[in-house]
């Protein structure tokens, strides 16, 4: 799965919100390449932090670290520090298929994921709702992918909402 967004649009929130359902059910997750994760925000999103491993700065070894973790966790978010090579992406996706895990790559326009994926979210725009502070954000995303993605097309989600969670509008 790929979440593709211009930095600052909400891609990180969308990607991390995808951990909440599985982590609440007791599955393990790992987050690779996200340097300064806002763990309070993650907890608000519903992520159970007791079952999340963080590899914030894998430096050149992000693909190897991700491959190691795919053996041990059920969901893996990876933000490649630079454009992922074809070979690295292929290797990871093969491993995902073998293990039956979920890989979520968080990418940006300067470094897209090099292979077609089953499901992708392209963030196209976002809009904050403000009062005396930032309250919530609407994120518009285009759902695509080659799989049987049932809900293709454009969707609007709220992430974070006023409680810091993700919500469909």
């Amino acid at each position, binding site marked *: 799965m790929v979440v593709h967004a211009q930095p600052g649009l909400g891609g*990180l929130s969308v990607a991390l919100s995808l951990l909440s359902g599985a982590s609440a059910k007791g599955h*393990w997750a790992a987050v690779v390449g996200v340097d300064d*994760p806002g763990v309070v925000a993650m907890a608000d999103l519903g992520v159970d932090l007791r079952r999340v491993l*963080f590899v914030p700065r894998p430096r050149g070894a992000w693909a190897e670290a991700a491959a190691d973790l795919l053996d041990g966790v059920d969901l893996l978010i990876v933000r490649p520090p630079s454009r992922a090579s074809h070979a690295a992406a292929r290797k990871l996706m093969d491993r995902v298929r073998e293990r039956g895990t979920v890989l979520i790559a968080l990418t940006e326009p300067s470094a897209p994921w090099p292979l077609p994926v089953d499901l992708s979210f392209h963030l196209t725009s976002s809009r904050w709702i403000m009062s005396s502070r930032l309250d919530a954000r609407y994120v518009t995303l285009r759902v695509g992918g080659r799989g049987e993605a049932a809900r293709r097309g454009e969707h609007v989600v709220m992430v974070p909402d006023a409680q*810091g969670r993700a919500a469909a509008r």
Partner: protein
Amino acid sequence: MERLLALWVEPLVEERPDGSTLRDYLRVLDVLGVICPFVEPVRLGLCTLPLRGPSRFFGGDEAVFATVRQSVRDVLGLEVSLGVAEGLFCAELAARQGVVLSAGQTTAFRRAQPLSALGHKELATTGRRLGVYTVGDFADLDAARVAERFSASVRVLHRVARGELAELPGQRDTRLVARLRSARGEDVLRDEQVGFFGQRTAGDDRAQAAAHRVRHRLGPEGVLVARLHGGRVPEDRATLTPWGSPSPNQRDDAPWPGRLAGPSPITSLHQPVAVELRDDHDEPVRMGARGSLSAAPASLVLVRGSRRGVVWFAGPWPLVERWWASGRRRAHVQVLLDSGEAMLLSAEAGRWWLVGIYD
């Protein structure tokens, strides 16, 4: 009671958010450790050591003072204020005033301190009304009278005033040792075998094995786990610690008065980045003494030199923490940039820091 030599390093009292205060403090402890193995960190800017042993070794109090001063000068280029007294309460006051007391002088010194030295505003105010101006005046009040008139915390201060307790509650930063340890990378790697809730599932085992491999690949700081604890702002409420290091005793996610409301940033900078906030005339926006901004922010300048327009802002929300806990004064501001990015900034130590990004 033993005479304590206390060191007061004023520039290290206010913690800078970039971590340099903690590192400098650690260097002071390290260099003092050479002089005396019993150096005790009290809180940032303040540490103590028993004077008797080093004094014998170096040939007198004055020789110890000279060595300590020179050592701190050597490692940090800073002047330290030294004081000697019995008990931590008086040792701190002596250090802040640069007073060296001989054995037996501490009681008179303590009694002469203004009542405000006990660090309790309400007590100081009430005391003035009652004609109680000094710690000694307060100590002379009958304990039963104090008990009927004041809260339990003041009763404790009364015992400090009488010399029955050697230190103020909260005078030591209880989290400091753990912070120093982790700053030095001394976290002992252990308790990997203990699962959550005391029982392990096959999933836990697989995850632990994978974490092991990654740590082997990237080193002890390679894999981290997150913990939440009390605090008012997101950057204080979370810690990322190396996977496998012992869990510190932590407070739960209990309600915390004055917590910053609304969503937290999904990126919380481990080491805040210095930024500049400018107004319409390109003048720096400053936090006023009364908790307001000098002008509305119009642009944000990142140190790399890139500049973005500020299209909206909220705050400031000032945060004044108890002086004995950290002495930090901060205020937070949210800004929405013309690029669509939203950020959380903090004003501290006279400048602005980027502490969070709402990506």
